[in-house]
């Protein structure tokens, strides 16, 4: 059997549908990861060991186990406890939860990177806890975390093909669907790979732009 480039071309409309699904999963997942990661980071900083220890353990556990198994877990177990949502929603949630453990580390490093004197100065100026965070700490912590957070969008996008395991038809899933109709798998899979590569490189380029714009600490 030989490789036909026209087959790659023919798969493109399906790929664009798949791309939309992949981007939806990435987008929803990313919002979850950003918010949940911040929650994890705050809870790990909690003064009560009863909060910081279990959350720390949970974050380490989620971080060190495969996303694929987590996808299966949520896909099969959520319906058992009476939550039935679409596979895409399950996938986006699992993706978001998985990457929240990464973003929480990034936030933590960003917050720890703010010099101790900034906290002391805020105390000396009698700023409230809220004002200390919003006006002093976060404006300095966020630019530090922008580059790493940008990289995780790309990483999440590249993990979306795993959603095919829970019946979500993204690009790789679409390629396999075409293959099962035409009995030619090579061309559609190559098409999927090409689109993933191009979009991921494009995202990396955008991330570098954002980094250049917002990634510097301004005093």
């Amino acid at each position: 059997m030989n490789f036909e480039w026209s087959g790659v071309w023919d798969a493109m409309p399906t790929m664009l549908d798949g791309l939309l699904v992949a981007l939806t999963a990435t987008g929803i997942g990313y919002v979850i990861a950003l918010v949940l990661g911040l929650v994890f980071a705050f809870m790990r900083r909690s003064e009560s060991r009863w909060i910081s220890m279990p959350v720390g353990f949970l974050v380490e556990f989620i971080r060190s186990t495969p996303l694929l198994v987590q996808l299966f877990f949520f896909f099969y177990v959520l319906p058992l406890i009476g939550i039935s949502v679409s596979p895409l929603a399950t996938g986006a949630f699992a993706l978001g939860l998985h990457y929240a453990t990464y973003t929480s580390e990034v936030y933590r490093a960003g917050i720890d990177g703010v010099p101790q004197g900034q906290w002391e100065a805020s105390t000396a100026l009698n700023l409230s806890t809220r004002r200390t965070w919003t006006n002093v700490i976060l404006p300095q912590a966020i630019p530090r975390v922008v580059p790493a957070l940008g990289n995780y969008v790309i990483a999440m996008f590249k993990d979306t093909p795993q959603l095919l395991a829970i019946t979500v038809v993204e690009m790789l899933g679409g390629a396999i669907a075409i293959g099962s109709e035409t009995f030619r798998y090579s061309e559609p899979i190559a098409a999927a790979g090409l689109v993933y590569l191009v979009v991921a490189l494009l995202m990396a380029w955008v991330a570098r732009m954002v980094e250049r714009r917002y990634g510097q600490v301004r005093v």
Partner: protein
Amino acid sequence: MSSGLMSFIWEGLANTLLLTVFGALLGLVFAFIAGLGRSSERKWVRGIAMVYTEVFRGFPSLVLLFVLIFIIPTFGFQLNPLIAGILALALNIGAYAAEVVRGAVKAVPPGQLEAAIALNFTPVQRLRKVILPQAVVAMIPPFTNNLIELLKATSLVSLVYISDFTFAAQLIRASTGETALVFFGLLVGYGIIALVFTTAMKLLERMAARSLGRTVPSGLFGRKEVAA
């Protein structure tokens, strides 16, 4: 659980460990070639190394796995599935680890290289006796992250019908119907393997640092590097 099902688990576990260990070793080779290649004096070497890291970091590992298992055979190269799996995982993780190698080599103080040149060391001696011993210590913590990523990525091979730990769990789920228990057990299993690997790398880091006369703060759950 019957002993037949148990043997699936052991086989799957063995394959997962095999994929992780050999994927890591082969990935390490790719990482050093590409990572050192990026600081080569020759432009074409730098170019090839850069294309490798950019392409394989931009390519989802699952798609890479599908390419090696389903597309490459159509060109007449029939790879053993397990070897194809190791190769796909190694190409992917190698591209990430290459960045670690590059960063660690760059982080060695320039005075060290200048001193080696002043002492009339050959390029190979500079690398072997001066740069690498210092750079390797800095590489180990980020390599630990890469290793755990690799361990997690090995579960993808179950989607191309290689009988790894996840694949074995799927078989058991199908034959016993115990969904929640099986997948939770699988997660715990991966968590334990990851803990073993992390502990081993921590010991390795301490040994490498001691050989340079430095000490590493103790504690397994000490501060962790954030992957860039």
